[in-house]
């Protein structure tokens, strides 16, 4: 005689109607299997009768408020998750791409116009001439004629400041001052000239 397996015994107490005919018949005739199934069924009934005490109705509001407060705190933040969510939005994607392009091109222009003279100043006169010749043909004073700046302008045209801020692209507090303090007098002078020129061009 083949007794019911564990899975069949479970089926016998959980879904007796689904027990195959052969096993159901065996269960009717086999005292041992029936006893075992009855004992398991009794345990399930006894355990199931034990209920979780219902907390005070006020507890749920208090609980959800507690969780909301916790997830809004600075230390708990799925920023990476939020970042991914924002990056999926087309406008933000363009904003991020545009801002990244601006940063890269600013870096190139900076090296070609402001940083390069520092190297030239430290080198002997003969080298100065060679370095000058070797510089890329970027005319920093006429940015309107620069095709690379045109790319930046097109990318940034529809870029709202709020979108850039929301995308998290913002200088940390004090970063601009920190950079300015690291510049040499010549570099600061050149930066001031560029800023002045840009402000005049925009009619500020």
């Amino acid at each position, binding site marked *: 005689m083949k007794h019911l397996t*564990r*899975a069949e*015994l*479970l089926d016998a107490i959980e879904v007796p109607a689904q027990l195959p005919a052969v096993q159901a018949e065996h269960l009717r005739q086999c005292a041992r299997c029936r006893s075992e199934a009855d*004992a*398991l069924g009794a*345990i*399930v009934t*006894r*355990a*199931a009768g*034990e*209920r*979780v*005490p*219902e*907390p*005070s109705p006020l*507890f*749920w509001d208090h*609980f*959800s408020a*507690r*969780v*909301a407060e*916790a*997830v*809004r705190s600075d230390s*708990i*933040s*799925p920023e*990476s*998750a*939020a970042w*991914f*969510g*924002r990056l999926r*939005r087309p406008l933000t994607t363009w904003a991020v791409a545009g801002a990244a392009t601006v940063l890269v091109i600013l870096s190139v222009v900076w090296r070609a116009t402001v940083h390069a003279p520092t190297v030239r100043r430290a080198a002997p006169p003969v080298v100065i001439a060679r370095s000058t010749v070797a510089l890329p043909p970027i005319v920093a004073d006429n940015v309107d004629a620069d095709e690379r700046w045109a790319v930046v302008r097109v990318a940034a045209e529809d870029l709202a400041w709020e979108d850039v801020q929301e995308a998290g692209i913002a200088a940390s507090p004090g970063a601009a001052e920190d950079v300015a303090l690291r510049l040499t007098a010549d570099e600061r002078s050149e930066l001031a000239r560029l800023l002045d020129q840009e402000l005049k061009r925009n009619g500020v």
Partner: protein
Amino acid sequence: MTAAAAAATEDDRALVRAALDGHREAFDELVRRHQRHVYQLCYRFAGNHEDASDFAQDVFIRAYKGLRSFKGQSAFSTWLYRIGVNVCLNQVASRNARRTFGFAHVDRIEAPAERADTVLLRDERATHVRAAIARLPKKQRAALILRIYHELPHDQIAEILGSSVGAVKANFFHALANLKNLLQGGS
């Protein structure tokens, strides 16, 4: 899955997407929707209101932190149960060493007409069952709690516990057999 359950699952996914887009109130709604089940799950493992409440909060905070890892392949509730079981199994072991298991909490609401001796007897039986369940091996305990108290099908329990349906059934069977021995030995 019923049409209502399917709609609720889809709603949950929409709320998850909204929360990922930075709308925290969407996550608040997810908490309100699932807090009762999560709390009850935690109570089954913790055995008291204070710990259950702490565990449940931990579950939601972990869910919030890891929301990006929810791919929507399973129901949000299944994903939440998985976090819940992991939190509870990890926390219970450390807290049980410090606290006595099974004290009823102060917020409990009793029927006013109930006789005190009836309440005491019921409490004693409930405590006995809870203590016996607490002594089961982890996987057996989890399988039993999810099957009996949350009435989840074996395949969903398998998904939550990261095991096969056969393993879940075997764990559930052994849990019942062990529970029977523990309750008979203790009564």
